[in-house]
């Protein structure tokens, strides 16, 4: 056989083998390579390259070596899933480097991290002052994770004791001017409803580049034609405003009326509406 023909054949065989083996190794490889997995990955690739080009080598030998280099990390992964001790040994443990705002110099030394490197990592997390940090660890993959002191953490709704409207993931129902039926039926809506909503804002499906529905059933669209202004959804602000108006009206009636009975009724209802409003405001404000 001609040499170059054999190289073509081998290339294809190992491309396919490499593709299948890496598929088999799973997604975890990409997200969090441990050093061991990193090295095995490189080795598998090298074997493939070596056997592709080195025509004196046997194809089967290459495949066997690659399989073993793939199988071993998988088996180790399976064992370490079951066993914490194996897991600590294989994947390593996190090392605490800052605790109670104090740097643990011994642990740093153990990880062979200089204080400059630690500072660099902290700066990349937007921390410039060690005293802002309550707790920091070096993860097995070399990343530094930082817990800031509470007063340096970003403000959340919970800190403010604010009531906020719960949200669900938005569903994308129109892409490139085409309606996608599956997400639409996931949230229990249909094309008829969608067409009605599009008519309300005065655009046709063809002109919609992207259309999404939020957790409250409101449709927001992005058009191909960026010159057209799309009205923002008005339903919720309108509802809030009209409820507020009614509440004010009821208060007014309470003052105006002379019948005691009616006064009581108006007063009672105005308070009731007030309660409804305080319940609904967080939901309608968003």
């Amino acid at each position, binding site marked *: 056989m001609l040499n170059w023909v054999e190289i073509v054949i081998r290339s294809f065989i190992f491309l396919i083998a490499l593709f299948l083996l890496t598929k088999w190794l799973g997604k975890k490889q990409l997200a969090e390579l441990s050093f061991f997995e990193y090295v095995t990955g490189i080795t598998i690739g090298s074997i493939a390259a070596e056997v592709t080009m080195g025509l004196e080598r046997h194809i089967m030998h290459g495949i066997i070596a690659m399989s073993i280099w793939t199988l071993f990390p998988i088996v180790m992964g399976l064992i370490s899933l079951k066993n914490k001790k194996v897991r600590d040994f294989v994947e390593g443990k996190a090392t605490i480097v800052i605790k109670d705002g104090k740097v643990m110099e011994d642990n740093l030394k153990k990880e062979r991290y200089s204080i400059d490197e630690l500072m660099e990592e902290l700066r990349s997390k937007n921390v410039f002052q060690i005293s802002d940090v309550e707790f920091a660890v070096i993860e097995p993959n070399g990343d530094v994770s930082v817990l800031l002191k509470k007063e340096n953490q970003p403000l959340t709704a919970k800190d403010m004791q604010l009531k906020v409207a719960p949200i669900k993931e938005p569903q994308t129902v129109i892409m490139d001017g085409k309606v996608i039926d599956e997400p639409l039926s996931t949230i229990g809506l249909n094309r008829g409803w969608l067409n009605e909503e599009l008519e309300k804002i005065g655009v046709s499906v063809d002109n919609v580049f992207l259309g999404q529905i939020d957790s409250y059933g409101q449709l927001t669209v992005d058009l191909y034609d960026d010159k057209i202004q799309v009205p923002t959804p008005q339903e919720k602000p309108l*509802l809030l405003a009209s409820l507020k108006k009614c509440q004010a009206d009821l208060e007014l009636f309470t003052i105006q009326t002379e019948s005691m009975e009616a006064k009581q009724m108006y007063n009672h209802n105005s308070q009731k509406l007030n309660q409804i409003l305080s319940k609904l405001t967080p939901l309608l404000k968003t």
Partner: protein
Amino acid sequence: MTIASNVKQCMVTLKSAKETLSKLAQKSRDDEAKRTFHESMMEVEEIIIDLQMRIGQLEFEEPQYKGK
């Protein structure tokens, strides 16, 4: 504008609010939000009934302003 027509207007606004609430209760995907909308809708409904009774009384007292 008489009191009766003011109250009627308020009642009508509440009615439309009730419809919006029921629509929102149907469309919302979060159960908590759904329940809040639904409860609010029921309470608004009670207010509407009270107001309707009051409108009846008012129209009885001043029949000359009885509108649609």
